[in-house]
């Protein structure tokens, strides 16, 4: 046995320095595209921003003023909200079934497996599914069909995040409530759900943020329109589709509008995620 010593060998110190350097380099490389994307977005998009950019609809004319993106913002918010209203009760309901009632039955295992599979389904598949089942021969494109496509996309995300959060609720709380003589549904409604609420909100907002940026599910369900509308029965504009259409145009002003819309979308999603963060922070205190 060697003499007791608290100094490290130079070789070990060197290895430590090299490894730190490698990890730092990897982090910096990963940051490059991220910073570039944000830089491009801001430098190209901010120029398009103006009061009228947010308050006028696209004119649809190739010459003269192309108009703003009001209908796209309103359409995205409206369709995503409707999708949330559809996806959240179903998603949280499935999660509640899995955690509170299903137990370890084969059925709940199967459901959990299919939810996992759904999470991995490409978003265009949901768009196609709605296109085939609801659009063709059923009155054509409509905002509510876009919402359903988005809801399908959100559903597995909401379910999975809700299940995780519900499992975090200490079992002792359920037992305490049951031992007081509370029926199970009241235990769920008055104890489990309120305890899990901040986490549930976070999960929903993250799913919502993801849905807001999706183009594929809307491409052949809600399509695009120029006028601002809250009529879910007709075509509806949205930010991703506005970007998608504008970028393909030959005119610089339209491409410029695409950048402005992209920046708007990113800022909206950023705000949503920020609120989600705040909600989850509240849960830890």
């Amino acid at each position, binding site marked *: 046995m060697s003499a007791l010593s608290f100094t490290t060998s130079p070789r070990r110190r060197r290895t430590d320095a090299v490894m730190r350097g490698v990890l730092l380099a990897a982090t910096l490389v990963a940051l490059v595209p991220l910073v570039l994307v944000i830089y491009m977005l801001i430098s190209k998009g901010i120029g398009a921003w103006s009061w009228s950019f947010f308050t006028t609809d696209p004119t649809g004319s190739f010459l003269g003023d192309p108009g703003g993106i009001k209908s796209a913002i309103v359409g995205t918010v409206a369709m995503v909200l409707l999708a949330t209203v559809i996806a959240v009760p179903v998603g949280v309901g499935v999660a509640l079934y899995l955690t509170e009632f299903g137990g370890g039955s084969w059925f709940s295992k199967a459901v959990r497996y299919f939810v996992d599979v759904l999470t991995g389904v490409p978003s265009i598949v949901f768009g196609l599914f709605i296109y085939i089942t609801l659009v063709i021969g059923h009155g054509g494109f409509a905002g509510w069909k876009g919402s359903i496509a988005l809801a399908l996309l959100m559903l597995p995300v909401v379910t999975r995040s809700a299940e995780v959060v519900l499992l975090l609720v200490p079992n*002792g709380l359920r037992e305490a409530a049951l031992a*007081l*003589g*509370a029926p199970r549904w*009241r235990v769920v409604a*008055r104890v489990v759900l309120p*305890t899990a*609420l901040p986490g549930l909100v976070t999960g929903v907002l993250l799913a919502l943020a993801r849905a807001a940026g999706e183009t594929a599910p809307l491409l052949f369900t809600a399509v695009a329109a120029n006028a601002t509308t809250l009529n879910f029965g007709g075509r509806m504009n949205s930010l991703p589709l506005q970007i998608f259409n504008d970028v393909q145009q030959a005119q610089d002003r339209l491409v410029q509008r695409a950048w402005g819309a992209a920046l708007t979308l990113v800022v909206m999603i950023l705000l949503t995620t920020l609120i989600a963060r705040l909600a989850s922070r509240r849960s830890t205190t």
Partner: protein
Amino acid sequence: MDLSSTEDRSGKRAATQIPAAPAAAGSSPLAAAAGAAARTSSHEVTTPAPQVNVEGLRSWYGEQQAVRGVDLRFAANAVTAIIGPSGCGKSTLLRCINRMHEEIPGARAEGRVTLDGLDVYAKESDVVAVRRAIGMVFQKPNPFPTMSIFDNVAAGLKLTGTRGVDLRDRVEQALRGAGLWEEVKDRLGRQGIGLSGGQQQRLCIARAIAVEPRVVLMDEPCSALDPIATLRIEELIGELRANYTIVIVTHNMQQAARVADTTAFMLAGELIEHTATEQLFTNPADERTEQYVTGKFG
């Protein structure tokens, strides 16, 4: 007392007759225990509580049997302690009394549990009504984290949908009963989880007695508490005898000696001995009891 309905028990509780204690102490240890309980529980009885009888109780977790046929009589308005080494089935037995055992997936129980003759496991007995009559305090204090002190105590009444009760009145009564009123009366709106461990456990006791159960089960209620908080809870248990039949599972033999009128010793899912606490600790009938209480194992 009616275990068959989920109707509100908002009114005054019906007076329940305590069955007369067995006159002659027979040769069975059960009868002797009941006799001992009748002698030792000479304290004042404010609200008569029911006697709890367990007959031929067996219970399983999946394939594994935890309780192997136990007959036990818990005297009315008395404190009965159940002691024994870890895994002897004492907590399982306790959870079978208010049918919390069946909440664990794969768990089941057989046998009879009666409150003044009323069968807890009868077909027409509603599990929700059973639990309302038999309160429970857990090992770890578990106040509801989203609720204030007031709402925690009122939770049982709200969760059971009890109407026509003056909540403020009942909450104060329960907090006084749990010896917590003076400490929290000025901050009833604060979070329950902001209290100290001992206060939280007394809050949980207040929550349990606010629904006016007849029996209170305690599953190692002091194992997560410091000695001073433990002492407070033990004093409280002594006071609660006046209104409830109390069954306490404990790891701590000194605690059983301090609080219990009678003590039952369990080993490997079986009841070894149930007798007056003093007798169990000083002059047990069974050799295994003697070995356990003198610290030879466990």
